[in-house]
């Protein structure tokens, strides 16, 4: 039983890796060319999640050097997330149909 648990623990990240990999591929492959730039911007926003890792890293920092690098990480991560969101939103806001059916 204990062995089985270890095996599952070992494999679960690999499963996540595989499934998430296919998912990313599938999402993009259905996108019309007209949305490529906004979507690239959207994926750019999604990896802004690095911000939470940066917060954890800064939270663990002890020495001033670690704090400085952690501070930089949070700063850059926040820039990625916030900037990525607003440029994507600005672009997508403009897409309108001639039939006036906005959502």
């Amino acid at each position, binding site marked *: 039983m204990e062995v089985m648990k270890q095996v599952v623990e070992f494999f679960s990240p690999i499963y*996540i*890796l595989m499934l*998430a*990999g296919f998912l*990313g*591929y599938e*999402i*993009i492959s259905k996108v*019309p*060319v*007209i*949305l*490529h*730039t*906004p*979507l690239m911007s*959207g*994926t*750019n*926003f*999604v*990896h*802004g*999640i*690095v*911000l*939470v*890792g940066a*917060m*954890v*890293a*800064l*939270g663990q920092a*002890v020495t001033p050097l*670690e*704090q400085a*690098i*952690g501070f*930089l*990480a*949070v*700063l*850059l*991560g*926040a820039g*990625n*997330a*916030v*900037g*990525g*969101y607003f*440029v994507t*939103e*600005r*672009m997508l806001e*403009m*897409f309108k*149909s001639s*039939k006036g059916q906005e*959502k």
Partner: protein
Amino acid sequence: MGYAIETIYFLTAVLFIVGLQRMSHPTTARSGIVWAGYGMVLATVVSFVHPQIQAGPGNYALMVIAIAIGGAIAWWGAKKVAMTAMPQMIAIYNGMGGGAAAAIAAVELLKVHAHPLPISTLIMAVAGALIGAVAFSGSVVAFGKLQELKFFKDDAKFRFTGQQKVNAAVFAAAVVLGLVIALTHSSNGALITVFFLLALAFGAMMALPIGGADMPVVISLFNAFTGLAVALEGFVLGNSAMIIAGIIVGSSGTLLTLMMAKAMNRSVANVLFSNWAALGSGEAQAVTGSLKPMEPPDAAIQMAYASKVIIVPGYGMAVAQAQHKIWEMCKLLIERDVTVKFAIHPVAGRMPGHMNVLLAEAGVPYDLIFDMDEINEEFSTADVALVIGANDVVNPAARTDKASPIYGMPILNVDHAKNVQVIKRGKGVGFAGIENALFFADNTRMVYGDAQKVAAGMIQGIKDLG
């Protein structure tokens, strides 16, 4: 607490996936980014009480200050930027993400002496650091190039013989040093510093010799890199939200990069390791015929009495900020029962889809905008094809002239239309530096001048018809 946070991260991952999925259709795209935005806010808020954070209030203060400063600058930049400058803005935000991933790795590596990590984790930390640092410096260079900053302007300046070997050597040195750091559990500051400097240098050296026209592919590649770096650091921190989001971006970014390169008829390796000048061999086919000019009002009359007009916009139109005037003219044509369609080449603008954004900004409905594959058959039934500030993407040499650097690139079949009008600033050649046989064809008329002024002239021409 751990369970609560993991639940929120799980929810964030779901929101990201649903958001991206909604972003893949024009009608739901706007709501997609909002969904993803909620996910990001949730994840950020709960991370303040993450159990891995053990330090005192000092670090919390730093966290808040860093988020405030980074967020404010990015918000301001994102609100100010012009739509034409969007690609370089994406590049810089992407670079920030890569830099953040690299910085996380730096903190983890410096702490190894106090908090030992298994070798496999260390290798992932080092790999993420390398990829993230490359994405950071490379994106900064890409930004500089697209922003046309003086220092980056001359691509040839950064090319030298044996460049690939030097780059390979720098990369190899970074990899070896990274492995040494991981295998020896080293927290040696000097070693880590040199490792990061090598990684940063490699990213910059990789991007510097690449020309502005190829930058979209490179930015997209760096976007995928950042995703991968974030996922790797996610494994290091055991953070599932980072792992899932990072991998999704890594795989979708890789596919997007391949699609872009394919639209430009180049392989990714070709973009990275060569340049336009080195492509195409032998003499280009001689172009015969003459350029036949036409005045804007005459061009307008031809369109007003047509039954179908296809507009082919290029980056030149965006530079002249002519999209609003052009759409105004199109509306007049539509009122006269002329069928108007826009044909977009995959690399029109500076990125696939960039032209659509620019047209959308001018108010053009997206159901009048067609991809190359959708509309290419239709040119033969069009009375007029109006080319605005586009050149290489409508050059028939891509079909016939094996010596041409753009040979093999899919093009819009503008030359199949009954009449072709080309709005062009002057008589110069296109971005790839080659003559365009289309401009000399019997059914082509050249309308010279600034695209915005020409469009104004055309509007007047149509209005005068009553």
